[in-house]
């Protein structure tokens, strides 16, 4: 592959360009380069000189890769406002998450046939074994919701071409939020809070979930980069 195209491809990979876009960008720039080379040959330049002329006309491949990524980023609202999207929105995501969690629990209650049957509900919360199951389901849904919110921001970061840095920033903020914002159920009570002292079982694990998601995304990105780094 010519000298210009390989550095362009590598830089796009480093910037986290998704494979579908990367293939198209590289193919199109390679076509353009070939046209430039043919035009240079047509005016009498040798093959090597025509190659050099085509590369010089296209400019610095690293700068071009960054401009291409910037153009893709600018086309999304969350790409243009990445500080708000990945720095502030995760803070607001958790109260919404709680509301969804409550709705999901109520839906689950209805699905299991409890509905608004207070007698049945009282029977559950007064039965230690049944309440333990209920608390376990709540715990699982809590963890799943944290992971889902984090994945949503990771997906947005990929869609907006903002690169790994902002994906990691959003995961770190999700982690902080997961530690600070908390919800807890006890028999006949539901507590919500905003503090470091949540009295939750393993509160650090909630904070670790977004970091685990970030680590998984990082490993995935590195694997993709390595897999496609070979010309």
């Amino acid at each position: 592959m010519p000298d210009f195209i390989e550095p362009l491809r590598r830089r796009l990979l480093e910037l986290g360009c998704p494979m579908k876009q990367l293939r198209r960008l590289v193919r199109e720039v390679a076509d353009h380069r070939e046209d430039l080379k043919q035009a240079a040959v047509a005016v009498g330049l040798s093959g090597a000189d025509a190659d050099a002329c085509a590369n010089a006309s296209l400019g610095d491949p690293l700068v071009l890769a960054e401009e291409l990524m910037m153009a893709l980023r600018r086309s999304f609202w969350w790409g243009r406002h990445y500080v708000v999207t990945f720095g502030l929105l995760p803070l607001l995501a958790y109260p919404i998450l709680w509301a969804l969690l409550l709705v999901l629990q109520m839906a689950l209650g209805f699905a299991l046939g409890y509905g608004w049957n207070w007698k049945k509900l009282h029977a559950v919360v007064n039965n230690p074994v049944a309440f333990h199951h209920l608390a376990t389901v709540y715990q699982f849904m809590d963890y799943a919701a944290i992971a889902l919110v984090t994945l949503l921001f990771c997906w947005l970061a990929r869609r907006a071409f903002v690169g790994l840095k902002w994906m990691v920033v959003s995961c770190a903020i999700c982690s902080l939020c997961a530690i600070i914002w908390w919800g807890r159920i006890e028999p006949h009570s539901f507590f919500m809070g905003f503090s470091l002292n949540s009295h939750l079982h393993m509160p650090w694990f909630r904070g670790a979930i977004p970091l685990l998601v970030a680590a998984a995304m990082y490993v995935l990105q590195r694997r993709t980069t390595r897999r496609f780094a070979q010309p």
Partner: protein
Amino acid sequence: MKKTNPSFLNGVPELLVLRLLARQEMYGYQIVEEIRTRTGEALAFGEGCIYPYLYYLEAEKQVSSRRQEVEGRNRNYYKLTARGRKRLEALTSEWNRVTTGVSLLMGEQHA
């Protein structure tokens, strides 16, 4: 487009690309060449600079693209969409307003 262009020329590359694509489908290299020849080489895109513009315009749904084989070579051809046509009208109107204003001022100075 040269980096030294004054800021009021922002939007000119977009105008030129949309104007060319309003006439016919074109691929990246062809657009750069057309701009160079049709402006009497007064304006020239950096060869690679056309693609960020094209991808931006495509993401904004002002142009659409399709892969087509012509003379044994596969190329991405771009064409204007209805949204692109509206944008072209707006940019043309803005351009006419600016050039009229500048012409008036230049006329005053020469008078």
